[in-house]
């Protein structure tokens, strides 16, 4: 058994597509129309065959209260790994991304949290060497 996909609930698919590709730097893997919606997944260009991220519409009524409660407490909906967190933080900040948590050391990792503009907080993590 393998984890081939994970998902984030996004308020707006086109907006999410722009943020996750142009801003974060992922690339589209699948973009398949399903009825009035789309099956839209992105992957990291560093691992095009790796785990996909499904951008899932937030339509279900349980999703908004769930997302709002996580954001209220600053809890990320997903976590992505980077090699150099501070460089990535600077790059994204220059692109206008808003961070709810600036880079900080937390034990074996350095982490930051950003707002994906689609209703989620996203954690970026750099594994610190031993």
């Amino acid at each position, binding site marked *: 058994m393998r984890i081939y996909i994970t998902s984030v609930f996004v308020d707006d698919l086109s907006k999410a597509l722009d943020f996750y590709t142009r801003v974060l730097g992922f690339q589209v893997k699948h973009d398949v129309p399903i009825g009035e919606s789309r099956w839209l997944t992105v992957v990291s260009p560093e691992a095009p065959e790796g785990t996909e991220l499904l951008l899932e519409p937030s339509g279900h009524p349980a999703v908004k209260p769930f997302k709002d409660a996580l954001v209220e*407490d600053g809890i990320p909906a997903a976590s992505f790994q980077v090699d150099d967190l501070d460089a990535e933080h600077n790059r994204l900040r220059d692109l206008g991304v808003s961070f709810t*948590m600036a880079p900080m050391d*937390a034990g074996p990792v350095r982490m930051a949290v950003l707002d994906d503009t689609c209703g989620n907080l996203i954690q970026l993590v750099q594994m610190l060497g031993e």
Partner: protein
Amino acid sequence: MDAEQLDQVFKALADPTRRRIIDRLREQPDQSLFQICAASVAQGGVALSRQAITQHLDMLQKAGLIQVRWAGRTKIHSLNLHPLQKAVDLWLRKHL
């Protein structure tokens, strides 16, 4: 500050985790619940659940030692040491 508020300040201080939260917020103001939890784990202390930290924050807030404001849609905590100074003035100082 009345007697009940004074009680709440001392109650809030009567716990090592809550004192640690105060120490951390002094070093780094304006933290979300997530950040306070991450920092508490990172410090190598006892790993506490978010629910436990939430309860500690509630007690600190009730005592007026923590202020909450909204940054966008996220709740941000910072210190208000005014009640601590009041506790010093009203009670601690006469024994110091």
